[in-house]
């Protein structure tokens, strides 16, 4: 019974990142728009889990969630999936080159990943004839970086539960 309970708990925490990924995609919470700033939790979620627990966040799910976000927000299909895959690719690269897991390492390496993803995002929307507020995108990037440690802490807690 204890083993069974442990198995359920393990499966639950293992699937939690995927649930979260699809929940924010379907619910349109990729970018949390607060009064003066916005945070892209989608990027943070993908980056963290591809970096720390790649088995829980496969590229296929990342791609699908990007497609869902595109539909929910009304962007051309493929825009969000491309930028999310860029984030995932950057996270995979960082996972291979880093030895010690620290918040600072993750945080600093998240900045170029975010820049690449936002550049792709901007470029694809530009070529799809979609106007975008550069200021909003810039603010979104800044606050996503600032809030990274908060979500890093929450996800680390989840990861610890999963591993315990």
């Amino acid at each position, binding site marked *: 019974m204890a083993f069974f309970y442990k198995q359920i708990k393990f499966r639950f925490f293992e699937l939690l990142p995927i649930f979260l990924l699809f929940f924010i995609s379907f619910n349109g919470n990729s970018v949390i728009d607060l009064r003066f700033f916005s945070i892209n939790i989608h990027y943070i979620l993908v980056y963290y889990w591809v970096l720390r627990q790649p088995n829980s966040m496969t590229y296929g799910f990342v791609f699908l969630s990007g497609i869902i976000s595109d539909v929910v927000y009304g962007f051309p299909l493929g825009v969000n999936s491309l930028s999310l895959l860029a984030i995932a690719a950057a996270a995979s690269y960082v996972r291979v080159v880093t030895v010690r897991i620290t918040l600072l390492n993750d945080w600093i390496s998240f900045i170029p990943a975010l820049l690449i993803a936002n550049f792709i995002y901007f470029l694809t929307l530009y070529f799809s004839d979609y*106007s975008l507020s550069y200021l909003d995108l810039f603010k979104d990037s800044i606050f996503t970086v600032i809030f990274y440690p908060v979500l890093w802490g929450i996800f680390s807690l989840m990861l610890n539960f999963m591993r315990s």
Partner: protein
Amino acid sequence: MDTRREDVGITIRSALLAKGTKKRFYLFSLTILSVIFIYLETIETKPLNYLRSFIKDTIYRGSVVVSAPPKAISNLTNYFISYINLKDSYNELKKENDLLKNNISKSDYLELENSQLRKLIQEQVESSSDFASARVMLDKQSPYNNSFIINIGSNKNIKNGMAVLNGENFIGRIVDVNFFSSRVLLVSDLNSKIPVLTEPSAYHSILSGHGPNKPTLEFLPENHSIQDGDKVYTSGKEGIFSPGIPIGETKIDNGVVKVLLFSDLSQVSFVNVKLNELNLDSEK
């Protein structure tokens, strides 16, 4: 130097590609697939449109289901907040009611005068427009996009470009039609450009959305005489919208002509889609 370059190459390969035979090129192929998807969005063919409609309709339904619990919590919170503010809103409504009672007689008089003047200039009064009513299915506000999904689509003869009204006020236009749903691009969206006419100053201009900020009037003559409170209507110049649909009123802020919309876009639950003449002909 060469060794370093080799190291980076090996790292990239091990990070992105070499994960066993099955996952080899997985990320790469998904990236290519995304690019293909983006390219396909620019192609308009019937089979592709059907496929897109099917995908979008399915995802919208899924989104409605997933959004239900958070929406219920939000509604419950709003209910409690409104309950707490009950007394204040009662007083406010009472004042508003008194004001409206005073205005009713004035409005009746203006309506009568209007009909008499119309007869006088022998204006051909339009036949009653056909509307399709719809419910807002999904309203996902993002800092980059101001649009929502309504629950009617090509099944009710909705077409791209049709005007969407909240009550009698223009709030946006249809930009994407699926079988059972359509996307409405609101006038506040960055991509929204609507030809309008101001009254009584009678200037043609373009109403341009600015996201969370108020929409503004662009391409006005340099020495225009627009004043605060001038009414803004659709001009019907591009031939899709009927002329004279009310949108809002002007407010000049540091030389920029902003438009205060008659409808609160965050509170829209039901809308009317104005079916144009072309559509009516096809129906017949």
